[in-house]
């Protein structure tokens, strides 16, 4: 049986200009300072790097996504219960810190940069070789690197979760430019209409993604 492929899907086959490499694009940031922005871009480039499978978090605009989130409900913990008293509890009870995510980012960037300058010849995180950056991120992830004013693990947790969100969410939120992550994994985005495909078993869905804006990938 012949399958009709809509023109929008064929567009995905047209060669497109190469994406930018992982130098930080010059975009405006509203919440983060220039130093924080440099850190964020460097960290995103290590968490989801550009590689043979395609562009990484920086190329897809994830730092812009996270900057935007800081000024929205998420950054302000606007829908979380943030009344005291704040007491420590075992991890099963979830977030118990009085710090909003935007405050965690601010404190986390400062603490990790101070640590890096102390340990690595007065270099901030963004100035370190990538292998050292990876080691610092791994120490944050494991809890080996922790700070007086902010939990290294919580900081890393927000950074990683928000990086993945910006990489995989609809471009309407500022990341996932060109829907490149969706194209890499085979997710058709906001198509949201598959009645004619549910019983085609074992056949890979052939159409590229669409975004909420109507953009076709």
């Amino acid at each position: 049986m012949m399958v009709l492929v809509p023109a929008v899907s064929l567009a995905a086959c047209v060669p497109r200009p190469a994406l930018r490499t992982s130098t930080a694009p010059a975009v405006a940031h509203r919440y983060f300072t220039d130093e924080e922005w440099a850190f964020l871009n460097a960290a995103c480039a290590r968490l989801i790097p550009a590689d043979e499978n395609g562009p990484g978090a920086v190329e897809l605009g994830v730092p812009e996504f996270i900057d935007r989130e800081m000024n929205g409900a998420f950054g302000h913990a606007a829908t979380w219960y943030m009344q005291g008293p704040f007491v420590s509890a075992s991890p099963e009870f979830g977030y118990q810190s009085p710090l909003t995510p935007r405050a965690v980012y601010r404190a986390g960037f400062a603490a990790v940069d101070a640590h890096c300058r102390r340990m690595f010849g007065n270099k901030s995180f963004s100035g370190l070789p990538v292998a050292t950056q990876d080691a610092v991120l791994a120490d944050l992830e494991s809890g080996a690197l922790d700070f007086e004013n902010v939990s290294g693990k919580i900081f890393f947790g927000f950074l990683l979760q928000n990086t993945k969100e910006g990489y995989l969410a609809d471009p309407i939120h500022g990341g996932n430019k060109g829907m490149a992550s969706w194209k890499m994994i085979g997710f058709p985005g906001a198509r949201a209409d598959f009645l004619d495909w549910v019983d085609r078993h074992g056949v890979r869905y052939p159409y590229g993604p669409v975004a909420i804006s109507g953009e076709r990938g």
Partner: protein
Amino acid sequence: MDDIRKPPVDAVLVGFGWTGAIMGMELTEAGLNVVALERGENRDTSPDFAYPRIADELTYGIRHELFQDLSRETLTIRHAPRDRAVPYRQFGSFMPGNGVGGGGVHWNGQHWRVLPEELRLKSHITERYGAGFIPDGMTIQDFGVSYEELEPCFDQFERVCGTSGKAGNLNGEQVAGGNPFEGPRSREFPLPPLADAYGATLFAAAAKNLGYHPFSEPASNASRAYTNPHGAQLGPCNFCGYCERFGCYKYAKASPQTTLLPVLLKRPNFELRAQANVVRINLDSSGKRATGVTYIDAQGRTVHQPAEIVVLCAYQLNNTRLLLQSGIGQPYDPGTGQGVVGRNYTYQMTGGVQVFFGKDKPMNPFIGSGAGGQVIDDFNGDHFDHAPLGFIGGGYIGVIQTGGRPIQQMSLPKGTPQWGSAWKQAIKDHYLYTVNIQTHGTIMSHRDNYLDLDPTYRDSYGQPLLRMTFDFKENDIRMTHFVTGKAKEIAEGMGGRSVEVKMKQFGDHYDTRIYQTTHNVGGAIMGEDPGSSVVNRYLQAWDAHNVFVMGSSVFPQNIGYNPLGLAGALTYWSAKAIRTAYLKTPGPLA
């Protein structure tokens, strides 16, 4: 500022999700003047769930746009009565709804009844295995109503919802293709089953090979266009993959908005007030009769709404909290076992098996309906001999492909790095090629799992938060090991490259961070004895005859199935008792 006093009404509904909408329909049909008070905002399919904005995983799936605002109101949680409870500050384990339609807006539509033996669980277990089979500390009870009594109510709710499925038992006769273990149905489902995704068919074949009995999960996602008995119309589900956590843009998922509100909101004897947060049920000087409720409106004003009948239709946690705040019924004390309000809080036990396939078998995981899929009931209820197993309960096993949203529904093998090029490679390798089998089962009620009011934390109105004391018990871990073990055997026959089991282990504590189910039950349980229940078999409060409590708050312990079908049927059951008996002679019905 003086309080506002509204004109009296015949009945006030507290909360306007599924049970509120059903009760509103039934009581207005009986000629009563009814006001519904909903703490959240008004919502409808258009514009609130309209395409394409609804196809947004981040906003609805991750940032919980349609759920309760925890900054205003949450609860505290601890594992044992000796512990200090801390607030549930952000969503994890469960996510109560908010706004008109409540959880009915963003459920999956998994629309089960109940197993007949589960309604009389304590009696059934005692008869088959002896009273000594019930472990110390387990506080299971009978519901006080039978499957036969509820059957017309189940049927009515399925007709309203346009439920898709295949009967396995019609009036006692076995029917091929349906669930052979279900209680008798008086007639076939309103709509035929939904189509199955690939993974579900692989599961069904593997289950059949092992001698089990796969069938289509009952789904209130319409498989065809449908007009319900009220004249409300549903369109066919198009497997959009944005079901649970989302409103349905296709008018295909049964919700109050798609099935009842188009009729109810037009009735002259009905009024809906959104952003009306009820803080107290008011009692007369005898303390035995409600005079109405007090709520805070959108402008922060205190409003009194007098009513002849008060029906609690809020979420399970809030129904219990309102009773405690209002002093209706004796609060439960786990030390003495005395008191009833807050008693027998329980939850459900979920587990799963991931099956990883090679690239020759793309699963297209984004093709999803909320409830379409293949399941088996062979290890639910008392469909197998529990005597050698040493636990009570069970669950269903199945593949229900609800969607492939890539942030939250990405399954990766254990040991995959969480970041870096290796993570990126893994999402590329596995996203299209993974099937998840889920196990969904009971948790029995237990003496020291309960609800009361927190002594420390308050909501944005200054009222004490509810406090949950809950942890898993050995009985329920044994259940999930048995049922999830069966799921693993099926998984191994599905033709994948590897399988991985996810389930609770002995010694694991309840983890509030990980989504499990929003199937919290108990706290205001029904029964036949006022010494061990809050409401009678008609869901009428023993301690205030004009207060009725709906929803899963009344379950004495949890069932293996998703609870909404039973909660809806019990609402019709209670409404019928109000209409046929209570309105004629207001007073205790039992």
